[in-house]
């Protein structure tokens, strides 16, 4: 029982980290809290399903198209909506949240409801760790989460766009003096965040069905991880994912599974009450002080 909880807790942590990575990336670089994040997640899931089942494209091509479309939607949202209200945090949140609701509820309106909306797993089968059996898809999720985190670490430190990301995140005006266009980089960060949401959707959704409600849940989980970890802090995100991931799994196994969602909500409430800047925001506090 305990071994199972530990293993599934780890996988749950990986799922949360995967969900939060994109949201955190966009916020950390452009300062935009993309509340349409859950909608992009669900959109990618449905789009993959549609391209596979209605149009009949092969799985990998559908995946590729979905990730590309998600990135494109991120770009469009940035250039058409965000740029007009950039700098007004509340307007950014309201605009993206409104858009998110519109996208998700459109799927409901067009009757994308039911159990037939599922995505195929990458690998079928399972492996035993002692008495605990874990399916390959869950291991694959953990692998993707680790791989993406590593990829982002190296990408932001060794590629031109990645370095521009880090520059804009730290000091936009100084970055401008070296010819880095802050609007373009902001839009790219939004596209990257959206593409990460799509990747998360494609590997996580095969565990269940694609449902509109899932979008809201994803947004809450991503928010919980980012708030607990401290927005913009990648280390914070990883630690918060482990904390909330294990808390959720222990709650599900030792209390009641339907209390799982409460964990994220309570975590948000507690952290916002005690330490609103999050657990790993030492640097930010230092900045605020000076």
């Amino acid at each position, binding site marked *: 029982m305990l071994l199972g909880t530990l293993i599934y807790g780890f996988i749950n942590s990986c799922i949360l980290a995967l969900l939060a990575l994109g949201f955190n990336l966009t916020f950390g670089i452009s300062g935009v809290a993309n509340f349409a994040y859950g909608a992009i997640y669900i959109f990618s899931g449905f789009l993959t399903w549609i391209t596979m089942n209605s149009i009949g494209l092969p799985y990998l091509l559908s995946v590729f198209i979905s990730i590309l479309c998600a990135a494109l939607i991120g770009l469009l949202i940035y250039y058409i909506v965000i*740029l*007009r*209200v*950039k*700098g*007004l945090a509340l307007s950014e949140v309201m605009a993206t949240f409104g858009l998110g609701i519109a996208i998700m509820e459109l799927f409901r309106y067009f009757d994308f409801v039911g159990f037939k909306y599922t995505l195929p797993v990458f690998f079928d089968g399972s492996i035993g760790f002692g008495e605990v059996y874990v399916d390959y898809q869950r291991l694959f999720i953990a692998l993707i989460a680790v791989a993406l985190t590593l990829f982002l670490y190296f990408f932001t*430190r060794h590629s*031109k766009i990645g*370095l*521009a990301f*880090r*520059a804009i995140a*730290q*000091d936009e*005006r*100084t*970055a*401008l*003096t*070296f*010819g*880095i*266009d*802050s609007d373009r980089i902001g839009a790219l960060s939004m596209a990257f965040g959206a593409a990460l949401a799509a990747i998360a959707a494609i590997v996580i959704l095969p565990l269940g069905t694609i449902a509109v409600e899932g979008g809201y849940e994803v947004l809450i989980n991503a928010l919980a991880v980012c708030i607990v970890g401290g927005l913009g802090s990648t280390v914070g995100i990883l630690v918060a994912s482990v904390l909330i991931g294990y808390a959720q799994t222990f709650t599900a196994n030792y209390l009641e599974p339907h209390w799982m969602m409460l964990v994220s909500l309570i975590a948000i409430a507690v952290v916002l009450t005690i330490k609103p800047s999050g657990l790993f925001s030492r*640097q930010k506090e230092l900045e605020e002080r000076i």
Partner: protein
Amino acid sequence: MLSVNNLMVFFENALALNDFSMEVKEGQIVGVIGSNSAGKTTLMNTLSGLIIDMRIKEKRKGGERITVYGEVLFRGEDISETRPNERVKKGIVLCRERHPVFPESSVYENLKIAGYLRKKSQVREMILQVFDLFPALVDLKSRKAGFLSGGEQQMLAIAMALVAGPKLLLLDEPLLGLSPMMQNLFVDCIKSLRNESGITVLLSEQFARPVLPIIDYGYVLENGMLTLTGTGQDLMDNPEIKAAYFGV
């Protein structure tokens, strides 16, 4: 190389620069001298194009209305409405005031970021060159820029501007917050930049004493207005400058 004609900059209704004109010739070191809030930084932001970005961003959020009149010519071309990244491509690079470095990045990463618009091989070469100019940076290469001292940060800031490949280097108060010894070091460095690399330098400063000896031509700003111009020697001999900046 650079001519500024009848430049006027308003922040809402406040006039930050009033009918300002100046000329910078290729290979010169030109100084803009003025006290706090004289309009030096506004001038630098206007020349580097940052003010265009500020204007757009303020307008988006319904903030301060920034208006710029007059013309800025760079090598005969009107660049008044050119975005900052385009100006960097043309070779106009600004080093902002108060040691603008990226505090969370290492010294080496800061230099790599500064070379954003250049080819990788060029950046690598330039980094070696600035390490020659500021040997102190070599040992600090993997330290986070936020943990450097003020003087080291200023070295890094100038090194970064150099990696960006300036033809006209704008230095906004490069001596601010530095010890007199450090100030002398930077003044020498600015001189050698012009003499050895042929970079034209326009610097703004409130410390007139260390700067006046090295400038070819100087402009004195007061409350956004040009009050005096002349060669470095002219300005040093001027009784008003002596009274206001040297305290004699």
